[in-house]
């Protein structure tokens, strides 16, 4: 088992004919993912590295029974792409696209939710379960099958941390990169129950950032309902207030959502807190040595 993905997941890549779409479709397949179709309006009937391309998601689903999607289309077209996927019956969508206006994401999120569909992202690395499948862009090389779950709001930092776990001789069950945009389809609180229920995950690493209250919400959930050990890291402890650090998730606003409030809440919930990324593998290894008890 794994979180969200199985070996049977059949993936359609929306925007497969673009550079990113083509490169990452290849890498997903190299990871073992069953990429069954691509969609680019107007390019139906062609193929991208033997993957058939369709004019619409509905046509792709009809022909290939795809049941998950990975979206690479440019931001102005991302809303339409997501609505199209959900309308065609897809119930798991990873949105890699960055710079999607949050007003669009509000529509996308609530439309997906009311149709029972889950969005991961946008502006996110996606999800990967070594030995099972990958939806998104996390580099294949950082993985090694194992029993550590990773949930992160960051991009590259996630790769760094997952890689650190691997270099420490440990492996991952599932790594879930949520993205740090103002409106995300899946938050820590949404993701934690999936790992709670996953028999292949013994403990989780939670990688947060300053800004918003997602980590505080996660801490509350961990305190009251999550029974597996948690190692937490919050990036941006030393970031200056009110300055943008690359995306809106990293703004400190009104004294809320600081590294201090997040770390205090996570500590109070029983999480081990890493002060720097390179401390994470040691904390994980220690928990594993002690048999996974928190």
């Amino acid at each position, binding site marked *: 088992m794994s979180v969200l993905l199985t070996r049977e997941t059949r993936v359609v890549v929306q925007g497969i004919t673009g550079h990113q779409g083509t490169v990452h479709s290849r890498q997903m397949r190299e990871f073992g993912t069953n990429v069954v179709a691509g969609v680019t309006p107007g390019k139906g009937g062609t193929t991208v590295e033997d993957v058939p391309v369709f004019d619409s998601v509905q046509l792709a689903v009809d022909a290939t029974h795809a049941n998950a999607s990975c979206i690479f289309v440019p931001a102005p077209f991302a809303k339409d792409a997501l609505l199209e996927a959900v309308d065609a019956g897809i119930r798991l969508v990873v949105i890699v696209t960055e710079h999607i206006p949050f007003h669009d994401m509000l529509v996308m999120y609530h439309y997906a939710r009311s149709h029972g569909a889950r969005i991961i992202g946008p502006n996110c690395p996606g999800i990967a379960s070594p030995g099972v499948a990958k939806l998104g862009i996390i580099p294949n090389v950082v993985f090694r099958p194992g029993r550590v779950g990773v949930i992160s709001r960051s991009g590259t930092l996630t790769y760094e941390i997952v890689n650190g776990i691997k270099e420490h001789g440990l492996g991952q069950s599932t790594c879930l990169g949520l993205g740090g945009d103002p409106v995300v389809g899946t938050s820590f609180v949404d993701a934690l129950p999936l790992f709670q229920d996953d028999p292949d995950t013994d403990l989780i690493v939670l990688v947060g950032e300053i800004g918003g209250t997602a980590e505080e919400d996660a801490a509350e959930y961990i305190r009251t309902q999550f029974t597996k050990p948690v190692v937490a890291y919050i990036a*941006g402890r030393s970031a200056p207030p009110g300055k943008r650090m690359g995306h809106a*998730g990293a703004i400190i606003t009104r004294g809320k959502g600081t590294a201090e409030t997040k770390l205090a809440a996570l500590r109070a919930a029983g999480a081990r807190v890493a002060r720097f990324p390179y401390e994470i593998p040691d904390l994980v290894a220690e928990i594993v040595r002690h048999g996974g008890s928190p």
Partner: protein
Amino acid sequence: MVKLAEWRGKAVFRKYGVPLPQGAVARTADEAEALVRSGAVPLPCVVKAQVLAGGRGKGGAVRFASTATEARAAAEAILGLEFQGERVKELLLEEKLTLSRELYLSLTLDRSARLPLIIASAHGGVEIESVDDHEIDRQHVDPFPGLTNFEKRRVAKVLGLTGGPAKSLDRLLDALWKLFQGEDAELVEINPLAVVGDGLVALDAKVIIEDDAAFRHPEYADIRDDRTPLEEIAREKDIAFVQLDGDIGVIANGAGLTMATLDVLKEFGGNPGVFLDLGGTDDPRKVTEAFLLMARAKPKAVFLNIFGGVTRCDTVAKGLVEAMRQVPADERFPLIARIRGNNEKEGIEILRAAGVTSIPELKQSAQAVVAAAAGGSS
């Protein structure tokens, strides 16, 4: 984000039918006086500095005038003042209205709930942060079906409005909701929202437009906010670039990794000053540009911390080496690199050939950068 100055915010308000005081913008004392003399701004009037920083009132940048001469004097006193580094270049002159109450009203995004949020308080005219929490009402608005009548009735009750002002609020809330969606706003704030006679008037306007929606709003493309000149160049080149007071430059990829790098540098006594996030770029030309931009910020040492995922290490290395060739000798700085991940070996090889050592551990590489900035050799 694009923060609109008050007068620009009010221009947007006008487009959506939000009731405003009669007013106009002046850029000189002559203009200010002329606006009053021509009747474009009725007397008595208020003369307000158009800066994005707060604390205008306390800083003497909001003055009243009963005559055109007084308006001129007020303009002369305010123009040229500086607020948190921002010099006053524009003034908004507006009729001074007789108001009976000051309210607070805003519309923004609640990230946790993934819903727009109306924040309302009967205690306006002061910083909302200073108002007691139980005096502030928070109410979500669902994009489907949009703002409803029962929500509007609740706001009216919270603000203690009935009759004419309640009717005015009803239209005002519709206007704000349309503005919030139509302009892709992150924040629409009116403080104070004044009860004037039998209706409401927006005395101030704070509007922030979301950057990511720029493709839908070319009308905001030319608005500069509080960026430094280098930050502005970076923005034009689509490079995330933040400039502060420190002396160490950081080039990393991804916001999280950039922040984590900062945390580590601080830990070892470093003082980071310029952060440059390459994002997911794969383009050596862009790496070169970013590096040259960094050089212009004159850091004492630069830390290149790249984890290659989508980005390839060798591509970054190539861009870096090209940039180093272009930096004039007298502008050079110590460079410590740490490149990991995708095509790591090739990247390290390229750097080594150019005389740059890559230290694989984050801790050790950070320590080396701090030492270099403190005067050690690279």
